[in-house]
């Protein structure tokens, strides 16, 4: 099915769109156009109305919302002027959407092939053609073994593969317009890079007009040709991507871009902080973890952490980095006494007793228990929805410090001020607070026991960039004020670069690289670390696009000979660059447990090369 394709074909035209929910205007006079073969991003923080705008392209409004002005036309038809049948036709053939969470968007009890076929049947294809087209589409989205993968159920696929199926579901009917709702938000950086590369290629090849919704400027930079920044339902700025990132015209855009953590260049932390970090004296060791192995079952393959060793010093922020499933959260939970290690030792060194952290929280002496505190990722579920948030802070104060009455109230207010929160806000229920405020309460709760070590498990992941920046600032201040050591768990290297003194990179349950933040970012690295660094998207269209290009990352052997990698086991045979034909892909394989010392505490676990066809 060939379509006449002119670059100036405007397929999506949103004109003066306003949407109200009750009496509240959630979208206020937004206009934009998307020509065929190009991508427009709607960027903004949560509550900016970006998803509401994107969904109007499918003629969808949330229950209770209504159009108060404007027009949305897709492929030349006024979406809100269509009757039910027309709308159904529009959705089945002209416009398709890739949802945020593919894991939830796919029907769990239906083979993925059937799900794609169903979309094709709805668009009017016959059964045989649908089956053929499904396989074709699976190949197009680079799913492995496209002939047979359709027989699988969603749970048998990885997160990245599920997202590919969701994309296949959308592009199978060759829609003219593609709506991407935060298409890579739940994915780790390496998978994200692959998915973004695929989306970019598909948009160009199929000539679709793509509208993407995102809060992540890195993703926008990688994909969008044009971007509209939304704030509280209003478009504050609309510009070609390059221009938007290089010379943002609006104050708000500048603020947002300034808050995005970056890993490249000298734009990490401000100068004063930088020098402070350089001079920060190596404090006494607080925590020593040695050869810890943690598992959820009894077998060897149930191990989530298979041998981790590190130290944490007073006043130091150590970042624990790795993709989901690398064992970093398990390690954190174990330190907090929620899941005992199978063997190895974990000690809190300054303790008067033996400071053994291998025992469960309940068995630890009170004095030890309060020294290590956890802050959680999800501010929505980390506070009891039925209790005022003061209760969350007051409970540990009573339990750990034995405070009562006016003393308790005074300390409670003091903690609120410590985390820069109005003490009055403590009288509210969690749902009456914003995400950032809730996260501050979570931090206050951890501080209530006067801990020496704070374990922060992805605490900024669910937050908007500007809120994220303020929480990171807070953490920075707190570690000075309270002399805190912090184990900061994150998969976002930009955030890590901003806050961490040292890095621990985990992969498959082992620490593959450890060292001072600057040394790790400068390299040379373990191949996995390198991959993580290269897959991290900078808010800069050129860098981000280079990063998602299919050939990005390159050959592992080239990186090795260019000096970007280290830690290759010395007795392993190095096939050398150009030793084989192009069809062979070289990968790394763990060859630990020995680490290669690079000085200043920078250590890289040994690995070896392995070829794969």
């Amino acid at each position, binding site marked *: 099915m060939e379509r006449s394709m002119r670059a100036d074909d405007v397929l999506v035209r949103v004109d003066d769109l306003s949407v109200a929910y009750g009496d509240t205007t959630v979208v206020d006079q937004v206009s934009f156009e998307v020509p065929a073969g190009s991508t427009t991003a709607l960027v903004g923080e949560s509550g900016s109305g970006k998803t509401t705008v994107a969904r109007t392209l499918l003629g969808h409004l949330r229950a209770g919302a209504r159009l108060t002005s404007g027009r949305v036309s897709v492929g030349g038809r006024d979406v809100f002027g269509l009757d039910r049948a027309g709308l159904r036709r529009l959705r089945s053939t002209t416009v398709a959407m890739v949802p945020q969470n593919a894991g939830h968007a796919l029907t769990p009890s239906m083979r993925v092939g059937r799900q794609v076929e169903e979309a094709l049947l709805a668009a009017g294809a016959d059964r045989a053609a649908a089956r053929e087209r499904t396989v074709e589409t699976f190949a197009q989205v680079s799913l492995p073994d496209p002939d047979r993968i359709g027989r699988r159920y969603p749970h048998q696929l990885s997160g990245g593969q599920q997202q590919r199926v969701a994309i296949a579901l959308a592009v199978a009917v060759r829609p003219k317009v593609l709506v991407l709702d935060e298409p890579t938000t739940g994915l780790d950086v390496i998978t994200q890079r692959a998915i973004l590369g695929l989306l970019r290629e598909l948009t160009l090849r199929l000539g679709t007009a793509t509208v993407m919704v995102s809060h992540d400027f890195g993703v926008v930079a990688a994909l969008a040709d044009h971007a509209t920044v939304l704030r509280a339902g209003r478009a504050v700025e609309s510009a070609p991507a390059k221009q938007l990132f290089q010379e943002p015209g609006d104050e708000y855009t500048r603020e947002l871009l300034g808050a995005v953590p970056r890993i490249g260049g000298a734009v990490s932390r401000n100068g004063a902080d930088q020098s402070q970090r350089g001079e920060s004296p190596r404090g006494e060791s607080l925590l020593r973890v040695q050869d810890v192995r943690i598992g959820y079952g009894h077998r060897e393959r149930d191990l989530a952490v298979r041998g981790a060793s590190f130290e944490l010093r007073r006043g130091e922020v150590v970042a624990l980095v790795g993709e989901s499933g690398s064992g970093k959260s398990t390690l954190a939970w174990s330190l907090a006494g929620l899941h005992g290690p199978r063997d190895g030792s974990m000690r809190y060194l300054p303790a008067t007793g033996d400071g053994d952290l291998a025992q469960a929280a309940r068995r630890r002496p009170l004095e030890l228990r309060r020294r290590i505190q*956890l802050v959680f990722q999800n501010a929505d*579920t*980390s506070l009891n929805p039925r209790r005022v948030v003061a209760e969350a802070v007051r409970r540990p104060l009573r339990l750990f410090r034995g405070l009562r009455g006016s003393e308790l109230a005074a300390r409670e207010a003091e903690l609120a001020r410590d985390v820069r929160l109005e003490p009055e806000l403590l009288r509210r229920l969690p749902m009456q607070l914003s995400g950032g405020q809730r996260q501050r309460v979570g931090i206050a709760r951890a501080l209530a026991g006067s801990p020496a070590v704070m374990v922060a498990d992805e605490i900024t992941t669910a937050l908007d960039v500007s809120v994220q920046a303020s929480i990171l600032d807070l953490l920075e201040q707190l570690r000075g004020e309270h002399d805190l050591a912090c184990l900061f768990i994150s998969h976002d290297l930009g955030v890590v670069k901003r806050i961490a003194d040292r890095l621990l990179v985990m992969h498959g349950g082992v620490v593959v690289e450890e060292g001072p933040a600057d040394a790790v970012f400068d390299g040379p690295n373990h191949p996995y670390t390198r991959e993580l660094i290269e897959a991290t998207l900078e808010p800069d269209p050129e860098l981000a696009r280079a990063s998602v290009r299919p050939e990005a990352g390159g050959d592992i052997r080239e990186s090795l000979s260019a000096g970007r990698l280290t830690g290759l086991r010395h007795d392993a045979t190095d096939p050398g660059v150009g030793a084989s034909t192009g069809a062979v892909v070289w990968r790394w394989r763990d060859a630990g447990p020995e680490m290669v010392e690079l000085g200043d505490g920078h250590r890289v676990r040994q690995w070896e090369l392995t070829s794969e066809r």
Partner: protein
Amino acid sequence: MTGSELTVAGTPAQGTLRTVWAGIRSSRAATIGLAIVALHVLVAIAAPLLTSYAPTQSVPAEALAGVSWDHLAGTDQYGRDVLTRVLHGGRFALVVCALSTVAAVGLGTVVGCFVALRGGWADNVVMRLVDSVLAVPAILALLVVVTALGTGTWVVVAAITIVYVPGVVRVVRAAAQSVVPLEYVTAARARGERRWSILRRELLPNVADVVAVELAMRASWAALLVSSLSFLGFGANPPTPDWGLMVAENRTALTVVPMATLAPIVALATFVVGLNLAADGLAKAWGIDRFRRDGR
């Protein structure tokens, strides 16, 4: 405690009560249901004031009389006023129903929350026990208990409690299991809180809506069960006025004085329908849907 402390502590309780009240008010079904139930309770309490007859006073001369101004619902085979007996007849059922429901739901909630929190082998053992009790038909289990232990009010209460606890455990455990992995519970565990304390502070407030609906549902089933027992002759003893017993006593005379059988049936039916409406209304008004709407 300081003043500010008190006001802060007062906020959630007030808030919760107000939420409950708003939930009931927002649902017509719940309002009507609760009104019916309240009416039944009032009538049972005030029964002696509402009629001029004694429920056990038999006047053989007036036996099997039809509907008249003296006897608005007629009389039964011993000449007792049917309306009087119907008004009094809820007392036994209501008391047994209330006591056993509160006992069953209370016990079941604590056990359900506990096993959800504890997990592991304790969870397995308790749930298999629950399965085995649930496998026995309720009325059969009741008859065994009553036959073995006699037919006192307390025996019936205990028997119904035993029969209903497993079901409550199962429902509450399921609700609690979705709360246990949430991070505020994890935080409490990392603080090294005692299990009972976690259960009371973190779990109970968040399964309260499920428990409330369960309370209303179980109460309606318990009312039916008590009446069934009485009908079978294992609940209230003659000459006590009781709905189930009245149906059993008067069904032979159904064709002669239909009101003597129908009146207690209508009374029982309205009570059960009231409880069911309340349960449905509450479930809809502040079940999962409502939580989503607020948490949006």
